[in-house]
């Protein structure tokens, strides 16, 4: 195919340099003094709001007695597409199941939120939280105690009845 160069006529009569330059300078000057229009969020001091459906690091909800709501049914490790939940079920004298080991590798997690959706006891949740830095890789494997200790708000799952979240 031959080369195709689009040649556009210059609209010489509409062109202005001096006036356009001065208008541009006026525009920048207006922004220079528009103190109230500064858009930067001063991050560590002020934080921009996050969605109620934000899916961040996990949180395990507890009963009134302070125990994990988890009954070790094994649904969340089954549904987890990233295979990041490690669950070893246990049973006490009264026959109640509880997790002996419940670990989530937050590095492997893809934050899909399936674990929260599948949980019959509404025990495991993804949280509305994003400041997760750690000094070591091991710090990102959250055990049961750590998941229970988290206090940030949890994600509100998508409701088909109310798709826009109103």
């Amino acid at each position, binding site marked *: *195919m*031959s*080369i*195709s*160069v*689009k*040649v556009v006529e*210059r609209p*010489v009569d509409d*062109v*202005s*340099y*001096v*006036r356009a*330059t001065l208008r*541009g*300078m006026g*525009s*920048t*000057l207006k*922004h*220079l*003094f*528009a103190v109230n*229009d*500064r*858009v*930067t969020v*001063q991050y560590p001091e002020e934080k921009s709001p996050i969605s109620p459906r934000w899916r961040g690091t996990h949180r395990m909800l507890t009963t009134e007695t302070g125990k994990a709501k988890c009954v070790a049914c094994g649904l969340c490790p089954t549904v987890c597409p990233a295979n990041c939940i490690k669950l070893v079920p246990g049973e006490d004298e009264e026959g109640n199941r509880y997790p002996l080991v419940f670990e989530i590798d937050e590095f492997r997690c893809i934050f899909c939120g399936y674990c929260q959706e599948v949980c019959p006891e509404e025990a495991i949740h993804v949280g509305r939280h994003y400041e997760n830095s750690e000094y070591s890789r091991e710090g990102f494997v959250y055990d049961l105690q750590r998941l229970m200790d988290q206090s940030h708000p949890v994600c509100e799952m998508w409701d088909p009845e109310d798709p826009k979240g109103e």
Partner: protein
Amino acid sequence: MTFFSGVLALLQAADPNQPPVSGTPFFLFTIVKMIVVFTVYMIGVALLTLAERKISAWIQDRHGPNRVGKGWGQPFADGLKNIMKEETMPAGVNKPLFVLAPILSFIPALTAWCVIPFGAPLPTRWGRIDMVVADMPVGFLFILALTSLSVYGIVLAGWSSNNKYALLGGLRSSAQMVSYEISMGMATIPVLLLAGNVSLNTIINQQAWGGWNVVNLTVAFFIFMVAAFAETNRLPFDLPEAESELIAGYHTEYSAMKFSLFFISEYASMVTASALMATLFFGGWDVPFTSHDNIGPYSGWLTLLSIGIFLIKVLFFLFLFMWIRWTLPRFRYDQLMSLGWKFMLPLALGYIILIAAVMLGLSAADIQPGRMYATILGSVNVAIVIILFAILDRGRIISPAYGRMHPREIERMRQVTRRAQLAAEANR
């Protein structure tokens, strides 16, 4: 001749009664002036980097640096960082020139400042101290000579880096600076004609009596300002750096303090250019709307006041530099060259002839330099400015990419395009 004798009279009137300092006090005061000017200059340059970042941020609706000591400590944090960073020496560089280049670009920018008068003379027990580091009779020529030298630093940096981007940046800068230097020199000739001297103090005194040159010689100021932007490699003439095309242009391979030196020298030459514009066209340290400050008796207060006035003028131009940088986009390279050679240079040459003719006419009509003289010069100037900016505004000077093409060529390209479109449709 009447004009020159008039200027001579002005010079004598401007001369204070006290003789300038001499001997050992002169030596000591010069050293003190050097140290003070250098310190103020360097701190000013450091604060300018902060000002640039703040102004750019505000123009873009951001806050700018506000962490290190509310932002005020930012230049010192930057300086510390630059000293601590590794000095890279890429393989294949020409080592002596690579090290020499930042120095060569730094020193002329700094040295040019030494002939610029920054205040009214200070009377002391030992005599009159001129508020200028070196009161050279060749004043302005010295500045022109030194600012031309700064191109060597950039060209050598580009060449010795052994890097194609750096080389292109260096080449561009040499072409750009050589082109605009001519316009810059030509633009100042009307000023020198009016003052009848190249000494900067004479030029300031002439403006104190005859009105600021920006009022009488607006076109010269315009050319000088554009050329100053080109000389300092600031937007819209920052083709030697052109970060979107050449990475960082001539200082692509530089790091740490060597890079910082280029950075400092850019700001230093900005300060020098601002001071020059203030001196040549805005009356230098002359306190506006007063005349007693130029004849004396001088006092310490007057010196302080005039230094303050000069500072305000320089700061205004520095702000203008930044304001324009964050408003206008970069010129294309051929536009830059055609603007310099086809527009600025003929305009400057024509303007010299015009001003010389007007001055000759005024001298023939036996009008002494004074109010009447300035009024006539000013009204001629207004007429020229209106005509010039009307032409400039229509945009026939800065040509589009096909500007130099013959209409037949354009028609041929159109046909090629049309044929290609037809072929594409046939294939479909």
